[in-house]
């Protein structure tokens, strides 16, 4: 009698199991299942607005050192990485014919000195001649014409002396200019710093202004960063920055916003800023990528929601608010500052302790059936 009763029980059990499974599948798993959502309250808390940008480490002042006239390099005395003092000789250009030209100018000046002596002698003679002829003419012993001629001769001799003196001055100035050029052949460091590039070697012929070496002051290293224009609101000189170098991603360096360029990059739509290190770390590498985070403002008491809650619905920006009777209502909102950890300040549209939907497994509508869960299915912790 035991077996038939078991058999009688088994059939309804199986039918129940199958029907139950089907019912569960249809209502909980398939397309008719409620949308899983997570809910968070709107909270009052402090929020700090920050902006993020990337840039490169650069020397704020960098000196490109080269000759002022075309020429050939004789010697480069320093190499990349060398520290140099202000006034130290860095490289020497070859003079080519400069020495000979200085010598020629000197000789020409000496010749001019000799010309002055000749002119003085001529002047003396013509002046004596003129005095004599004038006294003879007064006594009508020579013609007035000869007297005029000798007077003219004296005037010419005086002018010739002046020409000779000026010629001497000119040649002396020429020699001085050549000496100055000779001094320019020595390339010296304008400031103390470090050699960052060596662009030409001895024997190379350069045009005027082409650099031989680049000198940078390691103390002037800063980060030239680019901030997206959409985030640039609130940037102010003096704001504290944290800098992360690509070579040391775990290490956070401190800096200060020291310059906001008045001209933005119109192609990339970015604002250019300069951030000084405080203090400047040792062994920086110019051109290294750096990530910069600037704190632009903060509020000690603001209505705050996670940014994942903000949705687009019917062309409006807002959040899905959960009413007490677990119905959904789309509420348009106005947002204020946003922090880098994904918190957004609410200016209007929500009250403190309103419950809003943060994550959803499907797009929501006002008629959606929802099921509030701690974490959505499929998300691994």
């Amino acid at each position, binding site marked *: 009698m035991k077996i038939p009763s078991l058999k009688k029980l088994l059939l309804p059990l199986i039918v129940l199991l199958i029907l139950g499974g089907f019912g569960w599948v249809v209502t909980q798993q398939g397309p008719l299942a409620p949308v899983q959502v997570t809910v968070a309250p709107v909270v009052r808390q402090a929020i700090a607005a920050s902006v993020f940008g990337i840039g490169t480490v650069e020397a704020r002042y960098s000196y490109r050192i080269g000759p002022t006239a075309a020429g050939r390099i004789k010697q480069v005395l320093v190499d990349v990485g060398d520290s140099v003092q202000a006034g130290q000789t860095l490289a020497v250009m070859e003079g080519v014919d400069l020495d000979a030209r200085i010598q020629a100018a000197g000789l020409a000046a000496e010749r001019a000195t000799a010309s002055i002596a000749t002119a003085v002698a001529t002047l003396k003679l013509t002046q004596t001649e003129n005095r004599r002829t004038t006294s003879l003419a007064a006594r009508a012993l020579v013609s007035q014409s000869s007297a005029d001629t000798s007077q003219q001769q004296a005037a010419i001799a005086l002018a010739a002396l002046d020409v000779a003196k000026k010629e001497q001055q000119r040649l002396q100035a020429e020699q001085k200019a050549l000496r100055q050029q000779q001094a320019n052949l020595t390339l010296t460091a304008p400031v103390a710093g470090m050699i960052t590039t060596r662009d030409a070697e001895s024997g190379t012929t350069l045009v005027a202004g082409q650099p031989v070496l680049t000198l940078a002051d390691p103390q002037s290293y800063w980060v030239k960063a680019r901030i997206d224009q959409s985030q640039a609101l609130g940037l102010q000189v003096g704001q504290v920055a944290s800098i992360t170098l690509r070579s040391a991603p775990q290490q956070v360096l401190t800096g200060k916003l020291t310059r906001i360029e008045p001209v933005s990059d119109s192609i990339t739509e970015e604002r250019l800023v300069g951030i000084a290190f405080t203090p400047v770390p040792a062994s920086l590498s110019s051109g290294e990528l750096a990530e910069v985070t600037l704190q632009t403002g903060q509020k000690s008491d603001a209505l705050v929601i996670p940014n994942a809650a903000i949705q687009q619905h019917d062309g409006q920006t807002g959040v899905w608010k959960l009413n007490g009777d677990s119905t959904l209502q789309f509420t348009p909102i106005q947002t204020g500052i946003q922090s880098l950890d994904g918190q957004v300040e609410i200016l209007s549209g929500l009250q403190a302790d309103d419950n809003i939907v943060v994550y959803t497994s499907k797009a*929501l509508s006002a008629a959606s059936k929802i099921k509030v869960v701690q974490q959505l299915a499929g998300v691994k912790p």
Partner: protein
Amino acid sequence: MISLAARDIAHSWSKYVFTGVGLGLLIGVTFSMAGIYRGMVDDAQVLLRNSHADVWVVQKDTQGPYAESSSLPDDIYRGVLGMPGVEQAANVTYFTMQVQHRGKDTRVMVVGFEPGQPGAPPSLIAGRHVTRSHYEAVADVKAGFKLGEKIRIRRNDYTIVGLSQRTVSTGGDPMVFIPLADAQAAQFQKDNDAIVSGRERTAANPAFNRPNVPGLLEAVQASQTTSHNVNAVLVRVRPGWDATQVAADIQRWKHLQAYTYADMEEIAVQKLIATSAKQIGLFLVILTIVSTAIVSFIIYTMTLGKIREIAVLKLIGTRNSTIAWMILQESIGLGLVGFIIGKTVATLWVPVFPKYVLLLPLDAVLGLLVIVLVCTVASVMAIRAALKVDPAEAIGG
């Protein structure tokens, strides 16, 4: 009145249930196949829905950015934004690549987007939206990344800050959303060796490396490494404006190609996945025919197995209509058991599939109608066999 069918089933219910389970598994496979087909079409459409765009502006004479490659200068959007009826216009880039993840390759579609603009990731299921303008990413949950993990795209590491769901390319590859500027750089960035050898090649070209023009070589090299291109501009139309008209205006006056949602849907569904969708569709048809045949044979043989009992019924004077009704009821009952089990197992195994499988309630209703119809038709054959039975067989050998 007692139900003959119920009594008959209760008599040998285990056989009946097992037949139903077998049939159910077959129906489950058919449902899954329909789901795979629907999922494929939905993959193509979800990309369009997620972009929240009304008009796609792409390179002239191309069907980009999904079906063909398209490249536009990234300042085009400003001109588009100035067109009447345009509310929002945003640059986007798309490119498919393999991302290294825990030692193996994951195929993803990298999307470059601007926050708050069309093309940005829709709702999340975990984490947060991107807040930094560089090196953060939102990834589709199917890609298998976890929050806080770093993935490498070309040269830079990106931190996964948010997870999204149902954000896939037309081919079903999960998407990874990264800021536009990073995506532009990544899309056209070569590896370091290629960049260095490219510089050397330029330096070896006497046209670019003139001794009397210092700085020219550096200028040429700098111009080679920057990219200011995007794949498409997504446009949202102002309320009250006709997207078709806005698209036509852009096409006419900006000399670009502009597609509305309907155009894009046609490209994505009719052209991009046409062949593979047909392939699956044809297989679905064959599978349905095969299932129909198997259902018919099962019911037929089940009736033939009871031929002796039917002869007894006839012998005791049961009316033909009562016997026919019993067979029909059993047949439809079997179909219903099969449907319930098939629908259940299909729903249960669907999440395991690597690509998206979409089970539509409409498909299930259609399936149910087909099953009832097939069972009715199949029972007709069985009823004919049953009615032809000679009552004498009940006592004969």
